[in-house]
């Protein structure tokens, strides 16, 4: 082998690398080991080396043989040839142990740590007596007993195997858990995308009408929804709804409620009758006892006449073209899905050119801030009054921003949904 530090530093200098001057012997020793030697060592004794398992088993067999031979050797009156053979075997065994010990030092990323580790000390003790007895001093014969310490080598071997196995099992379980979690998350994301796809992306094209909407779910999946329905005779149905609770159950119920209402709307042009039919349908398929508040209205875009019915929902606002805000207070019925056979009266209101209809869920008015105060109906009415003159999209954006600013750092506790419709502007 090359002379230690000189050659490796020379090599490093040639390759343009700067190597700090070796300050300790250990560092010198490290430099002595070329990458090739280390590669070979890791190949045999590294925890991931391809022949590590076979080499380990070979050493284990040798340890057992060596312990047995120590026992045989101690039998008195052994024939000379046997003593001779055992002596040769001892030399070979110790040579292999020594080779193994050196390999492990070479393969260890931190030489010091290995030499002073439990395994390092045991490996050294297993071979040390042989070298010390080379002096053949009588008093050193007592050290022969030290060879029995090879038993410890057995223990480290099994300890290592057990730790390795447990670590692998743990890693496998962790990987399985992570995989399951990722799968669940991916499925929820798909469900969320499906739910958002249920919501209409555009308002039916009608001259003089313009609308915008937004739903911001509190959790991955929301229970709020809005809908635009194209009806016979060119009328437009408008829905805003809020399912009790949120999460996956609410999302399922939302999909069922939305589908029922959408289907029934075409057959029952009276909003109250439509809600009554939807309620009965929901009551018949409601295993979780959920319910939904629904405001449903039908607009005749030609005349501006709005017919509406309310199933337990927050009454919407009408912002008149001149600015005043009115509440659509017409008496409603019970939330849908709670009790079959309910009645939902239909009311009528005349929209005038430039009026805006603002539908919302209680996620808007019941947003809390960090001081536990409610956003409240008054703040919403003020926003609608002051900023309702622009496009529906601008008003939706304005209100969402206002609620977000108000809530500050407080977590969103309920879905926030808004729909704004203008009539008679174009």
């Amino acid at each position: 082998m090359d002379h230690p530090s000189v050659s490796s530093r020379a090599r490093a200098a040639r390759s343009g690398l700067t190597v700090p001057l070796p300050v300790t012997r250990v560092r010198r020793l490290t430099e002595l080991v070329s990458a090739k030697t280390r590669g070979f060592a890791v190949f045999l004794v590294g925890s991931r080396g391809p022949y590590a398992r076979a080499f380990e088993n070979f050493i284990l067999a040798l340890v057992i043989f060596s312990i047995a031979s120590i026992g045989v050797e101690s039998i008195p009156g052994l024939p000379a040839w046997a003593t001779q053979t055992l002596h040769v075997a001892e030399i070979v065994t110790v040579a292999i142990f020594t080779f193994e010990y050196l390999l492990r030092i070479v393969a260890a990323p931190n030489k010091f740590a290995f030499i002073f580790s439990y395994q390092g000390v045991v490996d050294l003790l297993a071979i040390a007596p042989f070298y010390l007895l080379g002096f053949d001093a009588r008093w050193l014969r007592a050290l022969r007993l030290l060879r029995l310490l090879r038993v410890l080598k057995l223990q480290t071997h099994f300890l290592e195997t057990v730790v390795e196995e447990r670590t692998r099992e743990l890693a496998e379980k962790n990987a399985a858990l992570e995989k399951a979690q990722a799968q669940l998350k991916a499925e929820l994301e798909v469900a969320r995308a499906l739910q958002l796809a249920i919501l209409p992306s555009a308002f039916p094209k009608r001259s003089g009408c313009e609308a915008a909407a937004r739903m911001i779910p509190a959790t991955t999946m929301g229970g709020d929804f809005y809908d635009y329905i194209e009806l016979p005779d060119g009328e437009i149905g408008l829905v805003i709804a809020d399912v009790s609770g949120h999460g996956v159950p609410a999302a399922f119920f939302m999909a069922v409620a939305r589908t029922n209402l959408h289907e029934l709307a075409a057959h029952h042009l009276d909003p109250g009758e439509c809600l009554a039919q939807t309620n009965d349908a929901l009551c018949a398929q409601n295993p979780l006892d959920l319910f939904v508040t629904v405001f449903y209205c039908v607009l005749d875009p030609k005349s501006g006449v709005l017919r509406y019915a309310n199933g337990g929902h927050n009454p919407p606002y009408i912002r008149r073209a001149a600015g005043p805000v009115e509440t659509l207070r017409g008496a409603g019925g019970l939330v849908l899905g709670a009790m079959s056979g309910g009645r939902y009266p239909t009311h009528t209101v005349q929209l005038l050119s430039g009026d805006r209809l603002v539908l919302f869920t209680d996620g808007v008015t019941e947003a809390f801030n960090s001081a536990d105060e409610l956003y409240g109906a008054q703040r919403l009415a003020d926003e609608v009054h002051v900023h309702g003159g622009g496009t529906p999209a601008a008003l939706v954006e304005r209100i969402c921003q206002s609620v977000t600013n108000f809530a500050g750092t407080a977590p969103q506790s309920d879905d926030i949904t808004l729909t704004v419709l203008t009539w008679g502007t174009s």
Partner: protein
Amino acid sequence: MNLQIEATGDVTVVEPVGRLDFDAAPGFQEALERAMGGAGKPPGAVIVDGARLEYVSSAGLRAFLLTARAAQRSGIAFSLCALQPAVREVFELSGFSRIIPVHADRASALAQAQQGRT
């Protein structure tokens, strides 16, 4: 949210304190089930006193709905009283005040419960 349950004679009064939202609803519903006797002997009437109930979300309303249904099945008179204005509005808007009797104060709710039993 906190709760006080008070049983006098044949009538159990439940007084929730604070906000009845999505997170508080399951605990509240459990308390109402206990108030209705659980597996034991049911009382004649259960009253929820809303004097210190600050807020009810839709999940909270659902707890009231389930209790009203269970009470009806077991023949227990279920009513509310002393609701704060904001909570009262929620019950009126949702139509729940039409399926669960709402009294102005605890005294009139208790009087109604006594009357119902004679």
